[in-house]
């Protein structure tokens, strides 16, 4: 373990350097691309923290999806009038000092924590057999803290509602204003033909292994969302108008199945979101499958943004 220490220290320094460049970069584009690199690097850091589930999520969402979203926004904002409001040096210095204090306080607190802090890990592992799962993180997400996960899905839907409601009045139920690639039959078209089949297989694989190994609905859904966006950007497929029924069904499918399974727990087991003994795994796998679809649709629509044009049909 100790031989890894210096490599870890190097990784931490690199993460900090790239993180700092997202803040101090002069142009927004530089900051956004640094954020992509930063997200991908953090995935390696999470692997070093033995949190492979988190590493998968961070690489997909932190690096890929958020980075793409920011890069798209930067490109749009190029047309904005430059604004040269800048804080004066004394204010910046004072702010820097205060922020350094916050960071130092936080770091100090962390180092002062007792080495053996209370943990739920043994309890989580002990009861994992009852769920039939092999991945403790999936156990937390879908059995012990299932309510949190359910509500998180609701939060995602609320965020999407927020994004959609930013559409102009006449574009409600229109097509999302995602920027597309202008030229047909280009190299990008080729990439959009080659990569999605691979991505879909990987996405389903992620969802499938999630019960027993790192992976799951979030990671699988994110890959599917990214592949869908790629196909739309390359103009191989049109972005759906936000009013379409199948799209709306896809959005609520996961939360609805989750909720139904939760309500079934009231009858077949001893409470809301309790699974009947012995049947926990089939329940969880069904929920995860439905959630993967919903997460894919929600994330893709969130990245696509509010609708721009009225549907032409």
């Amino acid at each position, binding site marked *: 373990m100790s031989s890894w220490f210096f490599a870890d220290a190097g990784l931490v320094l690199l993460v900090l350097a790239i993180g700092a460049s997202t803040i101090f970069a002069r142009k927004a584009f530089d900051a956004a691309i640094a954020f992509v690199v930063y997200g*991908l690097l953090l*995935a390696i850091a999470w*692997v070093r923290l033995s949190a*492979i589930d988190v590493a998968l999520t961070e*690489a997909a969402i932190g690096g*890929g999806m958020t980075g*793409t979203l920011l890069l798209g926004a*930067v490109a749009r904002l190029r047309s904005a009038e430059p604004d040269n409001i800048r804080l004066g040096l004394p204010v910046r210095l004072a702010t820097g000092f205060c922020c350094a204090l916050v960071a130092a306080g936080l770091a100090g607190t962390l180092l002062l924590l007792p080495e053996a802090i209370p943990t739920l890990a043994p309890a989580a592992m002990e009861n994992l057999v009852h769920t039939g799962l092999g991945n403790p993180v999936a156990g937390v997400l879908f059995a012990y803290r299932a309510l949190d996960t359910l509500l998180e899905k609701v939060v995602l839907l609320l965020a999407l509602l927020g994004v959609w409601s930013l559409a102009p009045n006449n574009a409600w139920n229109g097509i999302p204003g995602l920027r597309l690639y202008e030229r047909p039959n280009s190299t990008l078209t080729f990439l959009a033909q080659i990569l999605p089949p691979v991505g879909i297989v990987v996405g389903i694989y992620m969802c499938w*292994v999630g019960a027993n*190994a790192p992976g799951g609905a979030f990671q699988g859904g994110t890959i599917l969302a990214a592949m869908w966006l790629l196909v739309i950007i390359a103009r191989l497929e049109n972005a759906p108008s936000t009013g379409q029924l199948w799209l709306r069904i896809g959005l609520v499918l996961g939360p609805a199945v989750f909720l139904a399974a939760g309500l079934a727990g009231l009858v077949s087991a001893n409470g809301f979101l309790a699974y009947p003994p012995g049947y926990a795994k089939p329940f969880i796998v069904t929920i995860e499958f439905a959630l993967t679809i919903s997460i894919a649709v929600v994330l893709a629509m969130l990245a696509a943004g509010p609708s721009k044009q009225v549907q032409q049909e």
Partner: protein
Amino acid sequence: MDNFLFLIASFILATIAGGLIIILQRPAEVDRLMAAQLLGTGGVAILLILAIATKASPIADVALMLALFAAFATVAFVRDAPDPQNTARQ
């Protein structure tokens, strides 16, 4: 063998770190884009070595993710590159 794997992983990390720091200083946007691509290959190599060294094969899945999403950033860049008419930027 584990110590050797560790050595190689650290070495690759160091070369990537050097490359990243230099690239992110460059003014041209394409150069910065290469940083993501650099991590797409070098990061994958580090993760694969880690997967073998710590005998945790799910780490290879993280490498898979890294490869998929490093390409994705480039797609966004190529899509958003400005019109050839107004290339007046540094």
